[in-house]
């Protein structure tokens, strides 16, 4: 084993330029509407999303990528994975799109209550058929 270099050598002044994740949100770390979407919250692009109206110019390439991924209903986790952006960043950008009316939240959080028998049966049948 080689000696571990002193920690100071990894301080950010010497670690080179790094694009901070929140650069794409303009430094914002909280969703503008204050909503913390669950990892499997379901979102979908609306019919307003595709238009080239004035709103579109306010969107970054990341915003547009999210709209593309949400043309069919999808989850926050899938969008984060599809854009390679951290979940926290995706939440901020999704909130922007929701406020623009380009994306709507179909389901904010999974239900906290007990799952129904029908749902569990459907999942079991699906797993057995794999």
């Amino acid at each position, binding site marked *: 084993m080689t000696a571990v270099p002193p920690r100071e050598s990894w301080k950010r002044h010497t670690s080179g330029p790094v694009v901070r994740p929140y650069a794409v949100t303009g430094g914002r770390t909280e969703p503008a509407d204050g909503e913390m979407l669950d990892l*499997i919250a379901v979102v979908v692009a609306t019919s307003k999303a595709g238009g080239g109206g004035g709103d579109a110019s306010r969107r970054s390439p990341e915003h547009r990528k999210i709209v593309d991924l949400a043309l069919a*209903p999808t989850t926050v*986790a899938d969008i*984060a994975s599809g854009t390679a952006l951290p979940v926290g960043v995706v939440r901020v950008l999704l909130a922007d799109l929701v406020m623009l009316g380009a994306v709507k939240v179909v389901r904010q*959080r999974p239900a906290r209550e*007990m799952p129904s028998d029908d749902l*569990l049966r459907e999942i079991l049948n699906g797993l057995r058929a794999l």
Partner: protein
Amino acid sequence: MDSAHSSDQGAEPVFSPHKLLIAGGFAVGKTTMVSAISEVRPLLTEEKLTTASIGHDDLDGVPGKTTTTVALDYGRITLSSQLVLYLFGVPGQERFWFMWDELAYGALGAVVLADVRRLDDSFPSVNYFESRELPFVIALNCFDGAPRYDEDEVRDALDLDPGVPVVLCDARQLASVKQVLITLVEHVAARRAQWAAAQAAAARSAGPRVPPASSAAITGR
């Protein structure tokens, strides 16, 4: 189509994702398990630092830093065009506890993957799911050369409730992982049946004294 369960949402099929968690100690095979049954994709989470991570994430010299990046494994199992299971590999070390609540919220249940040689690594996961009353099963990953333990010995060592299933598995094998997930969902169904029976018993003993407001909430009237 295959919308067997009743849905009042109209004709449009409803996309219905559900969470299952794969927890366990460091290097116990969580990633292997998720990748045996689904396509694993990395997921970056940018989490707020709390006191839980102080002492682990070195903040010296970065006083403004309030978040840290954690990579999670997640995989999707598409059961039908609407029904999709999301598996999340939950980092087991205590320093990641601050993100467990979010991962566990609304999850159907959890698999605690354990290595019989390091059973104590699964204590935090077991404690967490017990305290949150989230149904879980213990899956013993049978590493080559690992000593084989009797299920009862493992149950004693982990001080499990009698109802918690303990299954042997090979986290590399689809068929084995599939059986673990089936055992988990069957366990969730059993817990649901117990819960429904307890609700019914409570309603009977409470009789007509149940205030109208709460009975309306239960029936969703």
